[in-house]
């Protein structure tokens, strides 16, 4: 199916992606081509076919609800672009 520029802008917003204005047209074309490619699927009858989510049809393995991780906050936070006293800093959210 062919997408419009407004579709791509909406998808980019949902995906939290800022697109260069000059690149939008290219995305409209490429994404439309990709969707045309995947549309081959619609011709296939899949009535009564069970969807396959995990190739081994495995179910979620459970474990006892016990703490196994040690506290590594400082180490893990060392990669944060902005942090202070164990908190991640972001632009002001609440006025």
């Amino acid at each position, binding site marked *: 199916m062919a997408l419009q520029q407004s*579709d*791509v802008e909406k*998808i*980019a*917003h*949902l*995906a*939290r*992606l*800022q*697109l*260069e204005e000059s*690149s939008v047209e290219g*995305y409209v074309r*490429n*994404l439309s*081509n*990709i*969707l045309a*490619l*995947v*549309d*081959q*699927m*619609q011709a*296939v009858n*899949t009535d009564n*076919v*069970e*969807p*396959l*989510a*995990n*190739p*081994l049809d*495995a179910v*979620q*393995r459970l*474990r006892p609800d016990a703490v196994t991780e040690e506290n*590594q906050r400082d*180490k*893990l*936070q*060392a*990669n*944060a*672009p*902005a942090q202070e006293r164990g908190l*991640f800093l*972001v*632009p*002001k*959210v609440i006025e």
Partner: protein
Amino acid sequence: MQQHTLAGLAKQLQDGQCSATELAQDYLGRIKADTTNSFISVTEEIALQQAKAADERRAAGNAGLLTGLPIAHKDIFCTEGVRTSCGSKMLDNFIAPYNATVVEKCAAEGMVMLGKTNCDEFAMGSSNENSFYGAVKNPWDAERVPGGSSGGSAAAVAAGLVPATTGTDTGGSIRQPAAFCGITGLRPTYGRVSRWGMVAYASSLDQGGPMARTAEDCALLLQAMAGFDQKDSTSAQRDVPDYSTSLNAPLSGLKIGLPKEFFNADLDGQMASVLQAAIDEYRKLGAEVKEISLTNVGLSIPAYYIIAPAEASSNLSRFDGVRYGYRCDNPKDLMDLYKRSRGEAFGEEVKRRIMVGTYALSAGYYDAYYLKAQKIRRLIQQDYIAALNDVDVIMAPVTPTPAFRIGENTNDPVAMYMEDIFTLSLNLAGLPGMSVPAGFIGHLPVGLQLIGNFFDEARLLNVAHQFQQVTDWHLRTPA
């Protein structure tokens, strides 16, 4: 440059012909002189420390088969204290705080990490051109791609910069570059190798595996990599067989299936004749060859290019510019921070796949795309299960052609996706597969794909190893 196998180097170490430290220094020197751009990071300090420890371990009589042997990891496996970039500007400054299970297991064997290899950004690509760190050159022809996404891992082995590497294969990313670079690569059954610490692209398809010159080396490395891991919720709870002991089993009576959907009039004539010659070698080894059918395999490109982007769009939502990775300058509010950090740091192909996935999962489209693709995935798997009831191993092309030129497919994503036509279905089914050097077209190597039953890696390695006893394609090296 002289090329060595893991098995050959292991013997040299055992016999005291060289030390792990000398080996590490030799290979680090090769990497410094590299012109293929196979490496994103070289970890010289760690390598020399690990080599020293390996030599001490050997002196103390505690060395294993792999102790002291050099390895490089695809830069998508987390390595503690070392940049783990995933080939992306997003993670150019990311120092992993822990080791992936695969990295940990190799280190526990005493392997020596030389560095991190180049790859397509977040493993999305078939040419290694989607790397923030630049394209990798194919060692057989510097104007051509090494394949992708594990392009650096394949090129590094082919160029003799390291005897073996790790790769990951979500839609062909071990097998296709192995084929393009003339090396041996194995993508294991889904769940065989832990995904913990392997940065996720499409979680129901991703699987790490070994890349090396020979099947024997892949067996040695898979032995170290495979096994149940509590930390990976989809890890398989199954024993790991001894992959080396079955390598020498004779192939007489082996039943090989050739899918008629792959060996048809569309297959390039030169590719077909190289593959037929390889299959004839198997006949001489006593194998029986028959035609099989994988009726729905033609739908693997559409199914894959919904399922993988859908899972990617979800997995890559973690890159938010807040907790780690790239953050844009002077965000005006939180939404601006998210959008510009992601927009500025992700490359074109990653953005495309995130958007396709976001679209496929968005309200109103889920059933038509994602659910539909999962149902087709079931049909593709059922075809394989039926075929593998009838034959022991399936053989197929890995790629439609040998390595294409850098820049040849970059303007047309759909043309690039078509490169994956022979590899994707195996990932959708969850099966193991290999690429084995099978000949040349002109000066460029060609791979033969072997596809086996679930958890039958030992058979694949046996089938590949026996071929390598009667052919020398895997020993050819670029000029």
